[in-house]
């Protein structure tokens, strides 16, 4: 099913993510069905403001978009419907990261996030707002949802174009994160040894004063000789 998606995508030519909604947004019906229905595959970039974004999230988004103006930071697009792409078809900077379950929610209910990457400093910052469907204990974000965002953000700090897998994830949860709040996840690649990539990360409130979590992780680049399908 996903392979036929891939074949269809190849005939569409190079895949470019629309920035800021250049294409009209696809109408969202049920979340999961879209993966399997497919007469047309529309690439919608979900890492742009939508009505569910809180004021805090929008303000931070604007601040980081300003930082992108001199080219040191780049906003990373985030797609849903594209599962596997042949990296030879697409240039490194345009490689969309398929996040299926993370993007399977309607606006505002699940993971609302946008990531910015600084290639020189090897940092990726993620602005994340967790919606009500990410609950663990009443009113708090599920530890696994936080771990998911830490894993993804750290993975983006480790490598954007290349395929990597998480080998080790070590998270120190300091304080629970309330649902609907906005957090800033800062991740930094601090060491690269052969195929191993070491990333450190922290999760803070918007004003920087509350530390919600600290994490370190290890990613491994996949051997490019081996086929991964």
């Amino acid at each position: 099913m996903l392979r036929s998606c891939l074949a269809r995508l190849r005939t569409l030519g190079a895949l470019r993510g629309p920035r800021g909604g250049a294409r009209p947004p696809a109408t969202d019906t049920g979340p999961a069905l879209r993966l399997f229905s497919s007469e047309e595959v529309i690439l919608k970039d979900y890492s742009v403001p939508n009505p569910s974004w809180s004021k805090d999230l929008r303000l931070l988004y604007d601040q980081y978009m300003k930082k992108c103006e001199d080219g040191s930071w780049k906003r990373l697009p985030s797609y849903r419907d594209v599962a596997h792409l042949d990296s030879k078809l697409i240039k490194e900077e345009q490689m969309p990261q398929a996040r299926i379950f993370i993007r399977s929610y309607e606006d505002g209910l699940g993971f609302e996030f946008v990531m910015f990457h600084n290639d020189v400093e090897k940092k990726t910052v993620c602005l994340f707002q967790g919606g009500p469907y990410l609950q663990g204990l009443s009113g708090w974000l599920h530890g696994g949802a936080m771990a998911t965002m830490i894993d993804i953000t750290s993975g983006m700090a480790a490598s954007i174009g290349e395929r990597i897998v998480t080998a080790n994830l070590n998270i120190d949860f300091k304080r629970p994160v309330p649902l609907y709040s906005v957090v800033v996840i800062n991740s930094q690649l601090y060491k690269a040894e052969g195929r191993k990539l070491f990333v450190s990360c922290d999760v803070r409130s918007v004003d920087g004063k509350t530390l919600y979590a600290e994490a370190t992780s290890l990613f491994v680049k996949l051997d490019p000789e081996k086929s991964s399908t």
Partner: protein
Amino acid sequence: MQLLKEAELARIAKAVPVQMIEDARLFLQITEMETLGFEYVIFHNDSEKKCICLFQPGPLLEGLPGIIHGSALGTVIDTTFFMMAYYSARAVFTGTMTITFKSPGILSSVVRLEAKVTGTEGRKVILSCEAQSSDRTIIFAEASAIFFRMR
């Protein structure tokens, strides 16, 4: 849908700050359609101090082609830790969690997770967990965690 019964949530609410949010939903219940997301069941054995979780990852949880996304497995590991920590030690919040992924889990094949309490230190409860294939021949991940008991 919650992981715990109403009476238990009420007991937790007395010890730990919680707020009822309208329309909130447990993270694990990511879709109303069956078999696409997290399909799991957790068993707890009080005398052996063990929790076993049987987890069948649906196609929504894909990371690399045909493989479970690491943090989807991480979420189930965290949930299994939670059940172990809550039922054996009245601990509810994850303090630390460390996961080492050993080999990739295949989508739609069953993962068997086993968590146990390995020690306590004051309010800290120390746990370990292994995620294996259903015949226990392949180890997908090993994890350890520290949870904090409620006051």
